[in-house]
């Protein structure tokens, strides 16, 4: 008690190395988000659902490629494949979007993130880019498998391969559109609740409840209403843009003269969802 108190040097140091900026935070979040989308770096339990969906899609692609190689029948072309997988894409978004944004809210790490140089817009972009990449990989890799199957069994040599490349590239662009539209809507819904279960249910409900609206509008006694009916659901909206921009796709939608309306609505929908996301992250009080 009598000795004078001493402050011991226990080795605390200031960090003097280089400090990485916003770009590096953004890249790190993007990579982390993409890994989380497929459950990499998480337990085996986290991999079950995304890989189950990816497995089904890959299996379908392999079957289609095999049927084409053996029997020469093109059951689904590249664009139709993306449409046929729409339910699985919904399921994938419902699995991954809550994983990306709802978890952060639930575990209360948002204030920690935003105490870095990271801005709200960066956070949204990183998560959005990760989800878009994830969904695009989900569709693009199976399309590549179908392409490889077709390219290696073509009867017309290099010309046949070039033909296939010409079919594959627009289909990849179409998959990007799928990914962007679905990721924007999915992230917006997931960002509203911190409970992953509710977020997943909400995403599926929104996508599923819009489909019958299209069915009903398409039987109204008005040609305009029928041709515009696809606007009511994200899935037919994307299919409509595909029909308009890729005439060879044979999706089988009758758009009449309204093709450009589909494109405008798709762009407006994406922009609105992203703006709403930005607005939502202006305040990050935990939900």
């Amino acid at each position, binding site marked *: 008690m009598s000795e004078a108190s001493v402050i011991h040097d226990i080795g605390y140091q200031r960090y003097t190395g280089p400090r990485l900026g916003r770009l590096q935070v953004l890249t790190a979040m993007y990579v982390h988000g993409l890994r989380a989308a497929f459950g990499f770096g*998480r*337990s085996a*339990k*986290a991999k079950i*659902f995304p890989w*189950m969906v990816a497995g*089904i899609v890959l299996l379908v692609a392999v079957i289609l490629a095999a049927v084409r190689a053996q029997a020469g029948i093109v059951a689904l072309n590249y664009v139709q494949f993306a449409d046929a997988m729409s*339910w*699985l894409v*919904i*399921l994938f978004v*419902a*699995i991954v979007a809550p994983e990306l944004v709802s978890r952060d809210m639930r575990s209360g790490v948002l204030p920690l993130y935003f105490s870095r140089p990271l801005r709200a817009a960066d956070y949204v972009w990183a998560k959005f880019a990760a989800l878009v990449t994830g969904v695009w990989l989900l569709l693009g890799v199976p399309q590549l498998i179908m392409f490889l199957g077709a390219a290696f069994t073509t009867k017309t040599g290099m010309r046949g391969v070039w033909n296939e490349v010409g079919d594959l590239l627009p289909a990849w662009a179409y998959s990007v559109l799928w990914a962007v539209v679905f990721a924007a809507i999915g992230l917006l819904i997931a960002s509203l609740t911190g*409970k*992953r*279960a*509710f977020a*997943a*249910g*909400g995403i*599926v*409900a929104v996508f*599923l*409840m819009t*489909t*019958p*609206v299209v*069915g*009903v509008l398409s*039987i*109204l*006694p008005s040609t305009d209403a029928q041709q515009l009916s696809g606007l009511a659901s994200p899935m037919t909206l994307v299919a409509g843009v595909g029909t308009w921009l890729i005439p060879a796709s044979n999706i089988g939608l009758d758009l009449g003269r309204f093709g450009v309306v589909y494109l405008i609505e798709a762009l407006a929908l994406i922009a609105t969802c992203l703006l709403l996301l930005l607005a939502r992250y202006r305040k990050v009080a935990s939900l």
Partner: protein
Amino acid sequence: MSTVAYITTRGLFGRRRALLLLPLPLLLVGLALLCRSYDVPATDWGTPVLVGLGLAVVLPVISLIVGTGVLGSEVDDGTLVHILTKPMPRRDIILAKLGVAIVVSAVTCAVPLFIAGALAGSAKLGVGLAVGAAVGACAYSAFFLLLSLVTRRPVLLGLVYILVWEGLLGRFVSGTRVLSIEQYVITFADRISSSDLLVARVSLPVAVVLSVLITVGCTVAAVDRLRSFSMAGETS
């Protein structure tokens, strides 16, 4: 038992969660009204609205939200411990929660389906759909309640069942229809209303036996599972 039911109901309807149950039924009735007001023949819109939206989406999704909500949210929050430590049989806890889930989802689905059915054809069609939905709500609720006890991600697993099993496989692989609650509901509604808008693909005895089997079996399994339930922390 009544206290558990009361707490469960309050948990379901407390805060903003109850609003989640509103849009789907409203959309169903709204679409039926829209078609009715444009004088579209019911043979055209009956199947997409009543079966495509009503029985394939509204009923399973609402049963999923409610069925996993009654027990799953308490497991998530950890408040289930408070009920488990009370000196009451686990059977009563399950039965009370299942009862609430069935009543809530049956009412939320049967009422709009009755209105839409009455708009599409006759009150008989409405009654058929409502009874089918009520029976379906029992089977779905018991199934999803069991799911929320056997897995940490009941909603996702339930969505997989609804989307992949009933949605994708039920459409392309005819064999899975025998094990699909949606098909039982369609069979009941078809038999009661004998309307040509509905096409039953499963025979009535199969539907009755399997519905009862699913409801009772899942309830018994849930009771058994809750007997040795261990609360674990957040995983994965």
